[in-house]
């Protein structure tokens, strides 16, 4: 063990600032809470900090970071299940008395929750690639470069993502379409 040198400290700060925004956005789409999303990303960086950035992850750092944020986020959700159940319960309670006009929006909101759950159920690589394409707006080629994989893999994983989301959501999609149509 040796303390961080000033150089690696600077490097670390640069690394943090370079990747924070997109990792935060990633954690947010999974967790839906700003404070927890930030904390989650911080935890991931802290682990790297403690290990003083092992050289092994340098090759595809971005892939490593996304993977770590994915697991850290889902881990959090797992531990928070009881609390979440409470919140859902309260939410459900308050939903019962919203007027007709608002209820459609609530319906769509519910479907949004389903979509989030379905997205969170995607395997890690699949979820990360979906994130980079959908939320970061990256081209397939860019995703492939950043994660150190082939364009073909990106294509496959994107197809797989939509296919799985559709299977998970199939029961809700008709209402979803109807709701959107009438709003």
């Amino acid at each position, binding site marked *: *063990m040796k303390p961080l040198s000033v150089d690696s400290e600077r490097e670390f700060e640069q690394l943090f600032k370079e990747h*924070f925004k997109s990792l*935060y956005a990633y954690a947010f789409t999974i967790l839906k809470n*700003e404070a927890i999303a930030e904390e989650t990303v911080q935890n991931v960086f802290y682990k790297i*900090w403690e290990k003083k950035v092992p050289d092994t992850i340098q090759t595809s750092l971005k892939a490593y970071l996304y993977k770590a944020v994915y697991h850290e986020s889902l881990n959090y959700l797992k531990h928070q299940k009881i609390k979440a159940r409470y919140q859902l319960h309260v939410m459900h309670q308050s939903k019962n*008395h919203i007027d007709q006009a608002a209820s459609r929006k609530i319906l769509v909101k519910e*479907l949004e929750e389903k979509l989030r759950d379905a997205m969170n159920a995607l395997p890690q690589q699949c979820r990360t690639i979906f994130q980079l394409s959908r939320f970061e707006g990256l081209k397939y080629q860019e995703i492939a470069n950043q994660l150190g994989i082939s364009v073909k893999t990106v294509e496959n994983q994107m197809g797989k993502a939509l296919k799985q*989301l559709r299977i998970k*959501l199939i029961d809700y999609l008709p209402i979803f379409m109807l709701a959107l149509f009438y709003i």
Partner: protein
Amino acid sequence: MDDLLVKHLTGEATEAEVLQVEQWLANDEVNKQYFDHFKLIWEESVQLASVTQVDEQGAWDRFQNRVQEGKFPSTKTRVWSMNTPLMRAAIVTGLIVGIAALTFFLFHNNPGTVVSMATIQATDAVKADSLPDGSEVTLNKHSQVSFPEKFTGNRRVLQLNGEAFFHVKPNKNKPFEVHTNNVTITVVGTSFNVRSRGDTTEIIVETGIVEVATEKQTVLLKAGQKAITGIGITEAILQKQENTDQLYNYYRSRKFVCDGTPLWKLVEKLNEAYDVQIVFANDAIRNKPLTTTFDNEPLDNILAIIKSTLNISVAKEKGKIILR
């Protein structure tokens, strides 16, 4: 085909591939429906994106603060014995590293820009506490408020998750800002209740004037008024209303004040306060009005009174309390 459809959606498809997709879609109505599902999922998923602005510098400062305060969960899971020579060596090394890290931080942090954060958290019980500026906060169960240990700068900024009542110490030069669920509540000195559960935020003003702002809308609330926000399909909605009941106060006053209050509203609060699940077997009784005050009474007494006043039955089944 899935891969191609998605390539089409993302604009990655070549001309030839676009043609191929279009032909496939024209072949069968079922195919078109299949693609519509993809399209819908793709279009709707964007709603889940993060909309908040974060700045890396701020995040980096907060990160360093957490490191300094040792607020990270330990990544070590094994339990070590103190008595092995290796462990003793490790402790000595650890101390050296610690001192080095501390020295490092002392030299590399500009004390003027770094603000430590404090958090008050209520889990299974209501919690009252005071803030660095002398304002008072009462947190309902399962709620949390974070704020700087010292309010430097020209605003008092807090982040709330859950429900809290604020009694704000007046200071015209330093507005008091509560952030929750993409809603910002700004006051100079007043008292108000904020309830943020799920995507819905409700603000009720007890004294003074409160400004409630979402990204697109701002409303001013006076005493006795309330605002409700929710996240709609494309944007946040913000509504201003007159507040019609005093129930929101229950977790501070320990009183449930009903004044022509529909039963479901009381039940909602009882469920929270007593950690129970009271449900309606039929909708007809949900809106029955109730006028009474329950002052710090056991749940069974309250249920007994509801039962006799409204002439309904109360049954306990499988951990639920059923009203019919």
